[in-house]
C-alpha cells in the first residue's frame, strides 16, 4: 500500500517513500542482472573465439551423420542436426503427452479407489502410492527397462491373442491399414463430434423449457461409436490390419513399440499417477461432507451429487497441483537418456552436442523447448483454473 499522503503535513524524504523505494530497488536488481549476463556473454564469446569454435546456428544445416533408433518422421543419418532436433522433440512430446494421459486416467481412478469403503482396495492403493512415490524415478525406469529386456528373444516371443507378440525387441502389434472408403468413416466420426455440442445445446434448451432431462452422455457415446460403425458397415469395413509375422531374427509387418519407449512411458505414468492419486484424494476430501448431505437432503442422487456438487469443488483444489505434476512428468521424460530412448535431450542435447561442440546454442534451444512446453501447460491450466475459481467475498 502506498503511504504517500498528498495533503498530509509531514512528507518524508523521497527515499522513505515505499513506492519510490520499490521502483529504485527493482531498477537496481534489473541493472545487476543485466551486467551479469553481459559479462558472461562477452566473456564466453571471447573464450570460444580463442578455442576456434564458431558461434551461431549454422550447425543446424550440417548433416548429423548418426542414426536415431526411433523416429516419427522420416530420418536417415544424412539428415541435418536441425532435423534431429525435430525427431527428438517429437519423441519427447509423444512420451510426455501419452504419459500425461495415462497418468491422469490411472491417478484419478486410484484416487477415487483410495477413498473406497472397501478396506482391502483402499489399503492396496495406499501401498501402491507409498511405494511408487518413494522409489527414485530413475530406478523405476531402469527396473522396468530391465524387465522388458528380460522378455524372450524374438524367436521365442510370447504371443498374445495370436496377433501380438512380446519380445525383448519390443511389443509387436497389428498395424491398421486404411482401405478405400476409410474417408467416410473419418467423416462420420467428425460429424458425430460436431453433432454432440449441438445436441447438448438443444437438450439444455428443451430442459429449460419443459424440464425433461435428455440423456446427453449416452446419446453422445452412441453417436461417436455408432456413426463410424454405421459408415464402416456401409463401406464394407475398409480397415484391415497388417499382422506382425515372425521372421528369422525379427518380425515382418505390424508395428512395434520399442522397449525404451514402453519402459519410459510406463514408469513415468505409474510414478506420476501415484502423486495424482493423492492429489485427487485430497481434493475430494477437501469438499466437506456437509455438501453431500445437503445435496442428498434435496433429493439429488449420489452420482449427480458427485457430478454437480463434489467434483466441481474438488477440481478447484486439484488443478493447481495437477499442473505441477504435468510439468514434472514432462521434465522427467529427459531421464530417457538413461535407457537410450531418443528424446530431445539424448539426441539433440547429447549426440549432436558432442559432435558439434555447440554447447551453448544446443542447451539454450533445449531449455527453451522445455520452458515453452511448461509455460504452455501452465497457461492452459491457469486459464481453466480461473474459469472454475470461486467467488468469495
Amino acid at each position, binding site marked *: 500500500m502506498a503511504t504517500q499522503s498528498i495533503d498530509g503535513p509531514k512528507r518524508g524524504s523521497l527515499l522513505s517513500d515505499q513506492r519510490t523505494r520499490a521502483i529504485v530497488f527493482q531498477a537496481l536488481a534489473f541493472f545487476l542482472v543485466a551486467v551479469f549476463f553481459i559479462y558472461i556473454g562477452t566473456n564466453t564469446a571471447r573464450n570460444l573465439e580463442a578455442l576456434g569454435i564458431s558461434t551461431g546456428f549454422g550447425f543446424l544445416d550440417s548433416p548429423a551423420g548418426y542414426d536415431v533408433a526411433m523416429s516419427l518422421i522420416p530420418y536417415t543419418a544424412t539428415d541435418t542436426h536441425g532435423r534431429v532436433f525435430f525427431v527428438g522433440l517429437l519423441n519427447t512430446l509423444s512420451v510426455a503427452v501419452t504419459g500425461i494421459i495415462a497418468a491422469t486416467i490411472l491417478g484419478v481412478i486410484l484416487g477415487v479407489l483410495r477413498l473406497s469403503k472397501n478396506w482391502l482396495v483402499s489399503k492396496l492403493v495406499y501401498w501402491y502410492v507409498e511405494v511408487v512415490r518413494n522409489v527414485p524415478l530413475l530406478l523405476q525406469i531402469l527396473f522396468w527397462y530391465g524387465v522388458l529386456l528380460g522378455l524372450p528373444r524374438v524367436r521365442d516371443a510370447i504371443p498374445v491373442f495370436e496377433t501380438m507378440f512380446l519380445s525383448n525387441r519390443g511389443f509387436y502389434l497389428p498395424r491398421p491399414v486404411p482401405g478405400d472408403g476409410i474417408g467416410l468413416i473419418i467423416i462420420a466420426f467428425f460429424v458425430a463430434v460436431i453433432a454432440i455440442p449441438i445436441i447438448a445445446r438443444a437438450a439444455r434448451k428443451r*430442459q429449460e423449457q419443459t424440464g425433461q432431462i435428455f440423456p446427453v452422455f449416452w446419446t453422445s457415446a452412441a453417436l461417436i461409436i455408432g456413426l463410424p460403425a454405421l459408415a464402416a458397415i456401409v463401406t464394407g469395413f475398409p480397415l484391415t490390419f497388417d499382422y506382425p509375422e515372425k521372421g528369422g531374427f525379427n518380425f515382418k509387418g505390424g508395428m512395434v513399440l520399442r522397449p525404451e519407449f514402453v519402459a519410459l512411458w510406463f514408469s513415468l505414468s505409474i510414478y506420476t499417477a501415484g502423486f495424482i492419486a493423492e492429489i485427487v484424494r485430497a481434493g475430494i476430501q477437501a469438499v466437506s461432507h456437509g*455438501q453431500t448431505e445437503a445435496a442428498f437432503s434435496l433429493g439429488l442422487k449420489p452420482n449427480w451429487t458427485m457430478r*454437480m456438487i463434489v467434483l466441481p469443488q474438488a477440481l478447484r483444489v486439484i488443478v493447481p497441483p495437477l499442473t505441477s505434476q504435468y510439468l514434472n512428468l514432462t521434465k522427467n521424460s529427459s531421464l530417457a537418456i538413461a535407457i537410450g530412448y531418443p528424446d530431445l535431450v539424448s539426441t539433440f542435447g547429447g549426440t549432436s552436442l558432442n559432435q558439434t561442440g555447440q554447447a551453448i546454442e544446443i542447451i539454450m534451444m533445449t531449455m527453451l523447448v522445455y520452458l515453452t512446453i511448461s509455460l504452455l501447460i501452465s497457461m492452459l491450466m491457469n486459464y481453466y483454473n480461473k474459469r472454475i475459481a470461486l*467467488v*468469495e467475498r
Partner: protein
Amino acid sequence: MSDAVQRVSTPGVSDEVAIQIIGMHKWYGQFHVLKDINLTVRRGERIVVCGPSGSGKSTMIRCINRLEEHQQGQIIVDDIELTGNLKNIDAIRREVGMCFQHFNLFPHLTVLENCTLAPIWVRKVPKAQAEEIAMEFLNKVRIPEQAAKYPGQLSGGQQQRVAIARSLCMSPRIMLFDEPTSALDPEMIAEVLEVMVNLAETGMTMICVTHEMGFARKVADRVIFMDGGEIIEQNEPEEFFNNPQSERTQQFLSQILAH
C-alpha cells in the same frame, strides 16, 4: 415465568400422521446412540427438540431423511417406510427438507442456482419456472436482491435464509432444522427465527432441534427433551417449561435459562 408469549396463529394440526417412529435404535459401532425412540408427528405439527450436546438430537432427525441409517425399529414418513429400498429413500428425501447448522450452501453456485438446482434436476421443473419459484421464496426470506451473488458473499444470517429458501423450493411437506441458529451471531438469529416463524404460520410440519426457548414457546406444539439417546420427556411448551417432570429436564432447563 412470562405468560405473555404471543403464540402464532396457524392452520392447526390435523389427525393425519406425517412421521411415525416406532422402537427405533441406532448404534455407532458399539456405541448405543439412540435407544427405543417412539415418536408420532402429525401433519402441521411443530416440534422442538432440545437436550444437552451429544444426546442424539441430530442423529435422530438425520435418521428421518436417511442421512443416518437406523438399525432397529421403524421409521415411516408420509406412509412410506424407510428401509434399504433406494426408491423409498428418494421419495422421502423429496418430501422432507432439511436445514443444517452450517447452512451447507453450494459455494460454486449462485444463490439462485442453489435454489433451482434440485427443482430442475430432481423435480424436472422447467428452468424459467424454477427460477420464478426460487424468486418467490427468496422474497419470502427477504433477500431477493442477493439472487445473483455467491454464498461466500453473504452474511451467516443471509446464508441460512437462503438455505431455508432452497429447501422450500422443493415444496417439501416436512421440514427438519438442526440447530439452524447456533452458528450465528445474536443479531442474525432474530432474522432467521422470524423466517421460521413465518414458515410455521403456513402450517408446515416442522421438527426443530434448537435451544431458542422463545421460539419454542411461540410456535411449538410440543417440546421434546432428549438425554443419553432417549426421549426423556415431552409436553406442550407451557407445561414443559413451567412444570418439567423429570429431574434431568429441570437441570437442563435451569442451565440454559440461567444465562
